[in-house]
């Protein structure tokens, strides 16, 4: 790892001051992606601003939504009574991220800000009509993810919390890569009074995306049979050593069927 500076402020306003004092600083959340990236010398920030002391790790019931602080760890979401009661699919998703040690350190905000195309959380944000609250504004999920590893976050903008709308029912099913546990395809399906939302992760060249055809099919009939006649296009899907676009297209349909079964 290149030499770097480490600072741990006690509030988001101090964190912003700290990062502005650096030439090119990075916010450090759980570090499950950033630390390995630094170790491989794929990034060389002047400094790291650890935001784990900024009091961003609470979970609260907001009536029609569950609000989760950005620094809440995956293990805390998985074990949360509030989340398990209101949105069990979200707790299930958190319980399947990485491995036990990743879940003990990795955070919601870190995962969502990074927007890894194979990460699980972005699919929940998109399917559950989430609102991403930052230090300056609130961003709707449909506006947040702008491409692979790209989001609407501006420079020096910190995610403070994310509000997930409570669905009438929901499920998350992924086909994990056997080695990394990252989703080769993950599908989050959420039913609301005004329709069904289907978000797909692990598959799109542009990162997480909603699947309009499956949303329409499931909105009229929330059943695996409703998907049987659908042709899932492989256009724009990732091709890598793990799977071809066609294979991923098939997995999208299969995971969605399992999610609503």
């Amino acid at each position, binding site marked *: 790892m290149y030499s770097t500076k480490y600072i*741990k402020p006690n509030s988001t306003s101090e964190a912003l001051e700290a990062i502005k004092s650096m030439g090119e600083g990075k916010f450090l959340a759980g*570090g499950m992606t950033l630390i390995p990236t630094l170790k491989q010398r794929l990034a060389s920030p002047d400094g790291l601003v650890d935001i784990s002391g900024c009091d961003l790790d609470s979970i609260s019931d907001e009536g029609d939504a569950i609000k989760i602080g950005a620094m809440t760890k995956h293990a805390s979401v998985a074990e949360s009574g509030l989340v398990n009661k209101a949105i069990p699919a979200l707790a299930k998703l958190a319980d399947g991220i990485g491995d036990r*040690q990743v879940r003990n350190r990795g955070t919601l905000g870190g995962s969502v800000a990074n927007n890894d195309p194979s990460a699980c959380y972005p699919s929940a944000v998109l399917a559950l009509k989430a609102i991403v609250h930052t230090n300056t504004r609130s961003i709707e999920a449909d506006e947040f993810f702008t491409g692979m590893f790209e989001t609407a976050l501006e420079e020096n903008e910190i995610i403070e919390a994310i509000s997930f709308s409570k669905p009438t029912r929901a499920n998350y099913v992924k086909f994990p890569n056997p080695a990394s546990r990252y989703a080769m395809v993950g599908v989050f399906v959420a039913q609301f009074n005004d329709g069904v939302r289907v978000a797909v992760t692990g598959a799109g060249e542009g990162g997480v995306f909603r699947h309009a055809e499956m949303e329409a099919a499931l909105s009229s009939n929330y059943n695996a049979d409703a998907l049987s006649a659908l042709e899932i296009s492989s256009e724009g899907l990732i091709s890598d050593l793990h799977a071809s676009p066609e294979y991923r297209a098939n997995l999208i349909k299969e995971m969605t069927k399992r999610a609503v079964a």
Partner: protein
Amino acid sequence: MGEISLKLNGKLETRDVADNTLLVDFIREHIGLTGTHVGCDTSQCGACVIHLDGVSVKACTMLAKQAEGSEIVTIEGLADGDELHPMQQAFHENHGLQCGFCTPGMVMSAIEMVTKNKNISEDEIRKGLEGNICRCTGYHNIVQSVKAGAAKMGG
């Protein structure tokens, strides 16, 4: 550089470390406890698993500075003198290792999952060990060891 203080196996340790020092290097090089291993150094293998404030973490994927003020337990902190921790004893009795390189991490992960779930099932043990890789035994005896350790720990 800067000073950090933390509790390691019950003892307060204060050292000057560089900001980019990894926690595992702090434990092995600065403190001199080499039971915590570095296998892959890429967060995959779990040979470096320790307990940080009661939960298992990979010490190769944290900066020492992130552990400021925390309580750490390593494999060296488990035994009571010559008396092994029940989980260590279970690995011994069930031949839960061959070369032993992954064992410290396995034992640390096992203790955390059993502490949180006294009546742990075989499926839960296998899921709980996803972050620990063994290249010798094929896991059968390791899973048996964790089961036996859970029973000894009061499961």
